[in-house]
């Protein structure tokens, strides 16, 4: 900020570096030191935490006609998945966040594991983040389970309870195959983690498990990679060696690895080959990416607007992705090593999928962009704090507005007119450099030379198409109604395609 060394007309002013890939520069008149006041005010309100001021979300008095905080109800979501069932139970052991302070209050665990078992397993998992269920396949009953790394350490410690617990998970579906463990990290990093008490599940200790490393790099690598992307897109797009510059940022390569990992998880589960356990180090960055992307590939419910909101609430917000630390809301320490664009990377992966499956998602690109814009805006409480317990202490749901209130009260704007509901289709995106693209509409949207036409004719066209679609659905309903009236009293069947669709499998 400030302090441009160049002389000349615009040498006095303010430089503002933004979190969303742009820098703003204001030239000010040198007389009267106008810059100083401006600088102070901006600093105070841009970084309220450093000045004992509240985040804007706590002052925001916006009113919406829907309450986004009601979108996610864990009990309802697990019920949608058919849980609890004979093998999985809902436990309130973490009601007061005593078992694990970064996990949600409500957890789904194997029926055969007692609360005492859980406590003992917690001692062997980094930050007590024990393996718990994220998703269960409606038919073959294989599951995606998430956790943190085991505390193996240099000495190669073992924990009988943890080993037994993983075996119990394996046995919940009647397969005889081994439990598949995906360690998101590169193997070198996993080994290195032993030095700090962490590690991975060794073959010796876990006979009934098979471990694979997914080679996804850590938060620091991702941060540096995005920084390089910013360098090549702002303020100038370097045309002459654009593709090799893009390649040298490795951003798309990281996207590729994350997607490849998620595809493997989804494939294991979908094929019914085995249940899958996913972890990285703490299980709140790469793990969240992998489980949520795999769930998006497997379960079409998450591809609807509300379904996606639930997915984000569940796998990211409730399971303690450290939004406050990764984004640095209201914090002035911009060099903080805890910051990293992990959630942005996840949204980018979702965008890549939506490009490859243009009819599979109810939402459009604007939906993803508005989520990212409010990831940084602090206008809503949705992405504040690091975990559920902190949010509860701060009474976030009472004192702030949810981002989903904004979105759900104006859903039309975020709908994809090409969306076609398909219930049991698993999406396997092509995670190849041939198919991955830089998300120009997000990363380069601030560059005046790349800027979209305003008003955007495509958005306009979206609205027209949606209106047409509704019209046709209505006509179809009428025809179906007329048709069913002709047939002698058939059992009352749902009359609109939209009604026939979702709510997949309630298994009890």
């Amino acid at each position, binding site marked *: 900020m400030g302090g441009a060394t160049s002389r000349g007309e615009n040498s006095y002013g303010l430089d503002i570096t933004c979190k969303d890939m742009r820098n703003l520069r204001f030239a000010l008149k040198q007389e009267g030191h106008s810059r100083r006041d401006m600088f102070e005010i901006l600093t105070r309100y841009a970084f309220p935490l450093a000045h004992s001021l509240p985040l804007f979300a706590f002052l925001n008095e916006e009113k919406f006609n829907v309450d986004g905080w009601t979108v996610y109800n864990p009990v309802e979501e697990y019920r949608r998945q058919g849980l609890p069932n004979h093998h999985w139970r809902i436990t309130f052991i973490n009601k007061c966040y005593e078992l694990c302070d970064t996990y949600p209050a409500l957890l789904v665990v194997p029926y055969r594991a007692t609360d005492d078992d859980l406590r003992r397993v917690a001692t062997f998992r980094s930050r007590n983040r024990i393996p718990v269920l994220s998703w269960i396949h409606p038919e073959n009953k294989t599951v995606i389970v998430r956790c943190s790394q085991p505390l193996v350490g240099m000495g190669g410690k073992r924990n009988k309870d943890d080993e037994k617990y993983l075996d119990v998970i394996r046995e919940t579906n009647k397969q005889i195959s081994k439990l598949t463990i995906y360690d998101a990290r590169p193997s070198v990093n996993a080994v290195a983690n032993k030095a700090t008490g962490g590690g991975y599940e060794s073959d010796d200790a876990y006979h009934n498990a098979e471990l694979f490393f997914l080679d996804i790099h850590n938060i620091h690598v991702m941060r540096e990679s995005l920084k390089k992307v910013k360098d090549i897109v702002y303020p100038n797009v370097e045309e002459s060696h654009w*593709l090799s510059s*893009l*390649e040298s940022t490795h951003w798309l390569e990281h996207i590729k690895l994350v997607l490849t990992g998620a595809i493997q998880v989804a494939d294991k589960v979908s094929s019914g080959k085995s249940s899958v356990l996913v972890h990285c180090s703490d299980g709140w960055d790469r793990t969240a990416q992998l489980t949520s992307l795999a769930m998006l590939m497997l379960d079409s419910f998450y591809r609807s607007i509300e379904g996606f909101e639930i997915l984000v609430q569940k796998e990211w917000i409730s399971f303690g992705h450290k939004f406050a630390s990764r984004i640095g809301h209201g914090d002035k320490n911009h060099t903080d090593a805890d910051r990293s664009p992990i959630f942005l990377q996840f949204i980018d992966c979702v965008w890549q999928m939506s490009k490859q499956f243009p*009819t599979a998602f109810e939402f459009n690109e604007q939906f993803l962009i508005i989520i990212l814009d409010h990831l940084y805006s602090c206008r809503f409480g949705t992405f504040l704090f690091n975990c559920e317990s902190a949010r509860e202490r701060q009474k976030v749901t009472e004192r702030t507005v949810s981002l989903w209130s904004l979105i759900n009260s104006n859903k039309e704007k975020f709908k994809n007119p*090409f969306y076609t509901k*398909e219930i049991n289709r698993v999406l396997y995106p092509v995670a190849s450099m041939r198919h991955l693209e830089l998300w120009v509409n997000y990363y380069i949207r601030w560059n005046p030379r790349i800027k979209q036409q305003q008003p955007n*004719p495509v958005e306009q*066209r979206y609205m027209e198409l949606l209106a*047409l679609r509704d019209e*046709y659905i209505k006509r179809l309903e009428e025809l179906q109604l007329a048709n069913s009236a002709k047939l002698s009293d058939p059992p009352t069947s749902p009359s609109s395609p939209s009604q026939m669709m979702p709510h997949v499998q309630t298994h009890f």
Partner: protein
Amino acid sequence: MFSLKPPRPTFRSYLLPPLQTDDNINSEPKIKKLEPVLLPGEIVVNEVNFVRKCIATDTSQYDLWGKLICSNFKISFITDDPMPLQKFHYRNLLLGDHDVPLTCIEQIVTVNDHKRKQKVLGPNQKLKFNPTELIIYCKDFRIVRFRFDESGPESAKKVCLAIAHYSQPTDLQLLFAFEYIGKKYHNSANKINGIPSGDGGGGGGGGEGNGGGVDSSQKTPLFEIYSDWDREIKRTAASGWRVCSINEGYMISTCLPEYFVVPSSLADQDLKIFSHSFVGRRMPLWCWSHANGSALVRMALVKDALQQRKIDQRICNAITKSHPQRSDVYKSDLDKTLPNIQEVQAAFVKLKQLCVNEPFEETEEKWLSSLENTRWLEYVRAFLKHSAELVYMLESKHLSVVLQEEEGRDLSCLVASLVQVMLDPYFRTIVGFQSLIQKEWVMAGYQFLDRCNHLKRSEKESPLFLLFLDATWQLLEQYPAAFEFSETYLAVLYDSTRISLFGTFLFNSPHQRVKQSTEFAISKNIQLGDEKGLKFPSVWDWSLQFTAKDRTLFHNPFYIGKSTPCVQNGSMKSFKRTKQLFVVVSMKSSTGTR
């Protein structure tokens, strides 16, 4: 009754009915039923049974069993097995999923893995070993592999040689389009006016009715006749310009159309004199006029250095006079500013290598920089950038623009088209885009025969037309609401350049079509009557290739019909109509086409 006379007697046997080889004796009834679908004039020259088509490179689990045939139009693999892995959204009525038109074949490689031998088959070569495998490299980046492990070795060899022979003809009249059109004329000898689908504009509709009425409502102007040019002048309100007929019967130049548009102030007599100074006698041709009166003009270089100044001056004066504001002329020497056709070809070869390269993982790692190294995108960008600069001259500077190029029939086609696509929304409709290709490519004498290399004389090959479609695709990506047509349409259009059935992309100039087809007609005793040469089917008659349902995929659902100014013609599709079509596309999966 067919004219395919192989120059060497070795190949005569292919014209006989297929030999009864021993593999036919123990063939299963299932295989026997596999019969190719043939077009009029198409004959099977050779075939082999029990062929395995390889699908994946690393496994044989998806391989298909069937019969491989070579006709004078295509190679066809006929199988009962369903297509694995890949499903296409549309089906070509002329070609099955496994068919490759002969004109699409780039290289034929035969392999014998027991003897560890491999040979690239030229047109008239011998093959000293029995092939166990045939690999066909296609111009559209496809690689097709067949295994002959279970087939009769002699038949396999014969099919390979037949493919090599028929896919590499030495004479234009050996291309299948001639055989096809000859047959059509013979079949309809008793009818008046030749064949039904030869009128080009997509109206007549051969074979497949006009259901859906998608393309048939409007004809694509072919610019073969005076009135098409006249209408174009009126459409663009180009007041200072007139249609000129001095090239009727190709009296002035064999690489110009019979009719073209020139400044009103230049008399026929002057033009005749000037024409001698231009390469190929390609005098200035009007392409298009902006609503502000600025014109886009293309011409060849003046050969005679002494005359150059004087002629340049006269031409520029005439163009200035045709401008309502008497604005100056901006000249763009394309040879000096843009990559030449050899460079474009070199980039294309690299691009193709990159795209078809195995193993996959190796190219994957450095994909982006490898793509950059092909320079293909750099060239696409160069053409787009230069065209955008010319758009600025025409639109904002109100200057008329003259494109200059040695012969004026390569880079000029591309730049003239791009400028018009950028400036005139009419050219972003399907009919408009097709008329643009007729006007700036087909009629302007772009050498499709040489540049597409239909006769396999590779030194003249260059994919400028593909580059144009790619550049258009880039524009479509950037302005999705501005184009009536879709990516599918562009892809299908490019594929059509590889089907030697249509006359559109077969010749180096309109004159060549007339001359060659008249010769052919005489040799085949076809009565031409008043027609100038044979009327080959036009690519724009899409009903020959696709059903009405499939043709809906040509439409871009993002298109907003009403658009920026520039269009004053009444021929644009009405907004409402197009809307209805979009719905069919967008709801295809739930409600079908009702």
